[in-house]
């Protein structure tokens, strides 16, 4: 009798259901339940004060506010596009706060929460989505690389950067101000790209000080994660000879604790590891996507119950006696941040037409000078007409 999939993909569909299981799997690290109860994990003890948790709460709320303001700005036509991180704040803030200043982060286009933890002004992120630049910031300013849109490409950049760290002797010296780790972000869909797997090859073969942080938000645009894999993604690491772990991606404490340990291991020379943050993309892929075409609202509802912010608030109120005045102060800060983003975004200057020639190379070639001058003359001809 036949055990072959009648339709290719039916197999995949079963797997999908498994992967979509919203109940934490036994192998998934969770330190804070959706109800706001802290749970201990033998491998990932987290020594954290309630003040620190308050500060994480602040991050989560402000990061979500950045996201909702950006969406609003896109609706108003101030941005051309926005990739929302709604639902992934816990994963990103936990990972972002686990970084040390001299560690280096390689984001995709959705790591606004990590950017926040790296002290990147949210306005810096808007240029790319507004179309006033292609990113344009200096990765060295905050050790936060430019957003990368080509899926997976940044994971090789991260591996190369880690090779540089090794060559600089900034691994395993025991000096906390010297030892450096690299944190590479990618998504569930990206796990299929050759580049991501080649990055794993390099990291494994060279024992690089790199931590891969995969936000499995269940979707690659309209493709469920089972389109990419038949087994949990954290297990990909075993194929390359380094450890992988799945965490509750909506649990900021799990993300913080597990990423901290992974980064510490990387810094001390124990090599790479992969963290799969099991989370959910609550919004459409981007503001131009229509997710009603490919997924059910029911799925959204179950994930709402696992909100990364609600559980921290629940913990703070129930177990840390945090009063309303704290939450009010955060709300005020959130309002101020929103205003900063709204006014700042509108104030972002349009670049000058001739600026397209500026940074093609480190200096203008004769060829490009000729093209620029011709274009300048052409543009001037209109001003004359105008005058």
């Amino acid at each position, binding site marked *: 009798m036949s055990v072959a999939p009648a*339709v*290719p*993909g039916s197999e995949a569909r079963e797997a999908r259901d498994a992967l979509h299981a919203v109940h934490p799997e036994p192998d998934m690290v969770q330190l804070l339940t959706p109800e706001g109860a802290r749970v201990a994990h033998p491998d990932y003890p987290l020594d954290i004060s309630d003040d620190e948790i308050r500060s994480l709460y602040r991050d989560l709320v402000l990061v979500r506010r950045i996201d909702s303001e950006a969406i609003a700005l896109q609706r108003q036509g101030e941005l*051309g*596009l926005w990739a929302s991180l709604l639902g992934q704040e816990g994963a990103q803030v936990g990972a972002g706060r686990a970084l040390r200043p001299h560690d280096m982060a390689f984001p995709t*286009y959705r790591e606004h929460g990590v950017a926040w933890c790296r002290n990147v002004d949210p306005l810096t992120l808007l*240029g*790319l*989505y*507004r*179309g*006033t*630049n*292609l*990113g344009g910031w200096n990765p060295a300013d905050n050790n936060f690389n430019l957003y990368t*849109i*080509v*899926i997976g490409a940044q994971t090789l950049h991260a591996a190369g950067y880690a090779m540089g760290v090794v060559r600089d002797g900034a691994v395993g010296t025991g000096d906390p101000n010297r030892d450096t780790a690299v944190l590479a972000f990618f998504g569930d*869909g*990206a796990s*299929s*790209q*050759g*580049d991501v797997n080649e990055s794993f090859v390099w990291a494994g073969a060279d024992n690089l000080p790199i931590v891969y942080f995969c936000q499995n938000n269940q979707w*690659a*645009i*309209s*493709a469920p994660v089972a*389109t*990419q894999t038949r087994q949990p993604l954290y297990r990909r690491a075993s194929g390359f000879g380094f450890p992988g772990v799945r965490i509750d991606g909506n649990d900021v404490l799990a993300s913080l604790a597990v990423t901290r340990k992974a980064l510490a291991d990387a810094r001390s020379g124990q090599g790479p590891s992969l963290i799969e943050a099991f989370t959910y993309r609550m919004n459409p892929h981007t503001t*131009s*996507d229509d997710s009603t*075409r*490919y997924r059910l609202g029911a799925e959204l509802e179950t994930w709402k119950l696992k909100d990364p912010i609600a559980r921290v608030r629940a913990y703070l109120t129930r177990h840390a006696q945090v009063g309303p005045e704290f939450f009010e102060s955060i709300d005020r800060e959130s309002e101020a941040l929103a205003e900063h983003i709204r006014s700042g975004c509108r104030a972002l200057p*349009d*670049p000058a*037409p001739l*600026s*397209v*020639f500026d940074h*093609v190379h480190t200096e203008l070639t004769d*060829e*490009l000078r000729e*093209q620029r001058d011709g*274009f300048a003359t*052409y*543009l001037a*001809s*209109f001003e004359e007409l105008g005058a």
Partner: protein
Amino acid sequence: MSPITMAKALNDGLRKTLEEDPKVIVMGEDVGKLGGVFRVTDGLQKDFGESRVFDTPLAESGIIGTAVGLAIRGYRPVCEIQFDGFVYPGFDQIVSQVAKMHNRSNGNLKMPITIRIPFGGGIGAVEHHSESPEAYFAHTAGLKVVSCSNPSDAYWMIQQAVRADDPVIFFEPKRRYWTKGELDPTPYPLHKARIVRPGRDVTIVAYGPMVVTALESAAAAADEGHDLEVIDLRSISPLDTATVVESVQRTGRLVVVHEAAVSHGVGAEIAARVQEKAFYSLEAPVLRVCGFDTPYPPSRLEEDWLPSVDRILDAVDRTLEY
């Protein structure tokens, strides 16, 4: 028949090929339930099933490489590359396998693979979503490269491309997806250029998204008393040199327009051929109105950067000064 959009025309064309040949399959990222980010494959999975219209893992080399294997098994894959800037991870499979397998096998293997690529700018997108990589493929022996400029050509050309036994890189001008037009009752040869506006003074050659712009320029030029002939190249490789040369022999002047960077672009090849085959007819050098030799700019600058009616008219004036 009422006019339809180019996206719908492509959808109808693909549907026809899926209906007539069970070996035709449509594959790519988000082509299934979503129907593609531009909805070109909308409804095809519903009507033809998950085994013929399906979402692949997110990897372009894998998309093209598995298409090669499917072709060896006797299938006729239509691959969608989601955006121009994302074809490069599949470049090796395209230039070293898709393009060369027929040749490598002494003609024993056929590669009836169509690679659909929405290309070009003008839609206010972020980086990598507005590129024009056609010259890379036109320079690659073994590939055929075409681009449609209107719904009717889209409808007929996609069918011709899918039915072709040779690999075809099919460039769809994404900013024209929503342009409406009537469908011609019959197809025009896939690799023949078409004079879409006859004229006496200057020949304008364009393809894909720039054909509309060229026609707009011709209309504007007419007001200034210049009669432009506009040729829709349609096929970039092979290139219908004869039609272009014949036109230049009448007009004596040629302006080539494309969005891709000017240097080593398709315009260079057209200029090289025309100056050779119409040497004594040219009253002015072949001029090119193209993208500059810079990366595609942030979207706030794309209207300045892209070839426009004004830039084309500017070139027309310059060529007429000779």
